[in-house]
């Protein structure tokens, strides 16, 4: 009897944990998207204030932002200085894709973020800042959608976890 209770508790805890993990991932994705937006906002400001080049913006932000963005931008700087490939757009994209591969972000989130990088450089400050704003708009749209669904989805994931645990216990008993 005790073993059955113990097993049931474990199943219930496991399923509830799964639901909570899903909710956490969902919230973390929102947090990461906000972080990406902060990086873009910072870049735009750096360009507007000091007309800094993209590598300079990246380095300046690396010393101002909190983790995980600080490490990410420092990695970009490392790769940019060490590599033979000195195309900053390529170095930045590759490093960001690699570093954020295991983050709660989806592939599309990262691609929307990277849209600000020019294939060929922008000759005008306004043009470059325009590209950054477009990326921010894209991230903003994703963020708005996620925020709108945050409450119901979070509740649903926890409830579903709990319900599936109960169902599993019923089936097994």
């Amino acid at each position, binding site marked *: 009897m005790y073993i059955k209770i113990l097993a049931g508790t474990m199943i219930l805890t496991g399923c509830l944990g799964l639901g909570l993990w899903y909710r956490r991932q969902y919230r973390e994705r929102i947090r990461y998207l906000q972080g990406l937006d902060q990086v873009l906002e910072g870049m735009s400001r750096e360009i507007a204030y000091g*007309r800094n080049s*993209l590598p300079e913006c990246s380095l300046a932000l690396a010393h101002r932002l909190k983790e995980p963005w600080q490490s990410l931008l420092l990695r970009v700087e490392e790769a940019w200085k060490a590599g033979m490939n000195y*195309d*900053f757009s390529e170095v930045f994209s590759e490093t960001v894709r690699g570093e954020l591969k295991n983050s709660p972000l989806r592939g599309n989130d990262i691609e929307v973020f990277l849209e600000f990088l*020019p294939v060929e*450089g*922008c*000759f*005008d400050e306004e043009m*470059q800042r325009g590209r950054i704003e477009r990326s921010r708009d894209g991230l903003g749209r994703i963020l708005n959608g996620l925020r709108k669904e945050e409450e119901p989805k979070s509740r649903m994931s926890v409830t579903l976890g709990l319900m599936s645990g109960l169902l599993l216990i019923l089936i097994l008993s």
Partner: protein
Amino acid sequence: MEETLRWIFPAEMQKVFETVCLQQSKISEIRLRAMRPILIRRSGEEWFVEENGRLTKSPDPAAKISVKQLQTILDRACQNSPYAYEEELKNGFLTIRGGHRIGVTGQVVAEGEKKIRTQKYITGLNIRVAHEVSTAADDVLSQIYRKGQVLSVLILSPPGCGKTTFLRALIRRVSDGNPYGGGKNVGVVDERSEIAGAYQGEFAYDLGMRTDVLDACPKQAGISLLLRSMSPEVIAVDEIGEQGDYELLRKLSTCGCKLFATAHGDSLQDILRKFMLTKQELGAVFDRVVLLEKRDGKCQVKAVEALEDEACI
């Protein structure tokens, strides 16, 4: 000498520019023109570059460069941020990491009748490779000091004869001190980032232990700032040429500071004509004029003229 140019060439062009990068110390100029052979100037002689990187005297086997490749090189030189070099591109050149200067020609986007907004469809790049010759000024040091005091010097030569290299060496020797005088506080207004080769706060060239550099700063604002804040004994600027520049330096010469400056010109008469000055008027600002020339492919001192007394050479 460290290779400081390789990074501007994209991966697919590394082979073509292999020899050029390896022989950077001997190369003074790389000329890239759309659909024309790649030309370099090495030890004073003109060479073409083949696809496999070999240098040749004949233009026939030489590699040609496309408009797209030119654009890519410029883009890399600007670190994918041409907007950050907008002002430089308006003036037709930009200085990259290492102090190398890239002249740019293409289709000009004009703003009104006199102003250039930017350039597009780049068709020509002239990469002037910067060199550090720390002993370049040693031969004339004895002539630019009087009773242990350094004098104001104007360095004069046609383009490509090593004015900036000479100025750099002179600043370093005066700043560190030498057998003719103790070390002086030198303030450098590096308008084009060529003298110190500054990149993100790091200098590519050693300008001496008592040198303060204002990087990418217009002359007038820079000189005022240095005077107010760093109490320099010598102020150095590169390439004076505008009418206002002379007036600015004349005012500065009354502040008790010595001046080092460079200007384009073949002779002292050239510069007098350019600024519409008499020798006495120029002598009110500068004590010595160092004339440089290129002989047998080497940059050297042609003469040192004293503006206030007899010629030194």
